[in-house]
């Protein structure tokens, strides 16, 4: 269920998808820094076909949050 979310986080952080757990977050993954976050936002906006709001970008700090946003 979380595969898409994990894949997007992995792509943004440059990690292998298998190393991104369902429970991963920006505090558990060192590679999830501000630049990775920008890449993640761009990837999500492309997937969703819309720009994210500031509140959504702020709340996007875990694989679970990415999954929820993807719907």
């Amino acid at each position, binding site marked *: 269920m979380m595969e898409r979310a994990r894949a997007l986080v992995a792509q943004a952080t440059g990690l292998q998808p298998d190393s991104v757990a369902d429970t991963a977050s*920006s*505090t558990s993954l060192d590679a999830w*820094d*501000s*630049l*990775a*976050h*920008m890449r*993640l*936002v761009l990837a999500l906006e492309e997937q969703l076909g819309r*720009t994210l*709001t*500031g*509140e959504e*970008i*702020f*709340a996007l*700090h875990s694989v679970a949050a990415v999954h929820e946003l993807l719907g």
Partner: protein
Amino acid sequence: MTWTPGEAVQLETPRYRLRTLTEADATDRYLSWLHDAEVMRYVFSRVQDHTRDSVREYIRQHDGLTAFLLGIFDHADGIHVGNFSARGDPISGVAQLGVLIGDRRHWGRGVVLEARAALLDFLFGPAGLQRVEGVVYGNHAASLFNYQAQGWRMDGRLPEPAMCDGREVEILQFSMSRENWLARRRADA
């Protein structure tokens, strides 16, 4: 750390030094940042065409009593990489923070989190403030990430959006209280 209002501030982090800027720091390097559209993309700046004189004037506007302009310098080579500004109100105990990382080589390296932590220690400690606030364009993902990572609270948005990247973007407001910062520091220790 002891500090007397009006004294120059110098703060140390593992990789950076933050210190009060003087007019001598109005260098071509600093000026080049202000003319770099990518660096200035998310900066709220009233002045559009900065000069050395306008930079000196901006430095002078920070009196070191309630308004601070601290340069961020890399320990490795002493190079000036960015600035923090903090404008406080001694009566309310609240300061507005701004940041500019002009040296793109230091983007994505955690400089804001590291340097701002030292700045908050100073503002909530020797400077005696109770709360600090910041505003950010709602499409500035890197800054939003840094606010979240450091435990800032999102307070809301300004009533009117602003133009950024050719479109209207909401401006979001953040704050950090002294109480929450000190609790966070105790938890980190």
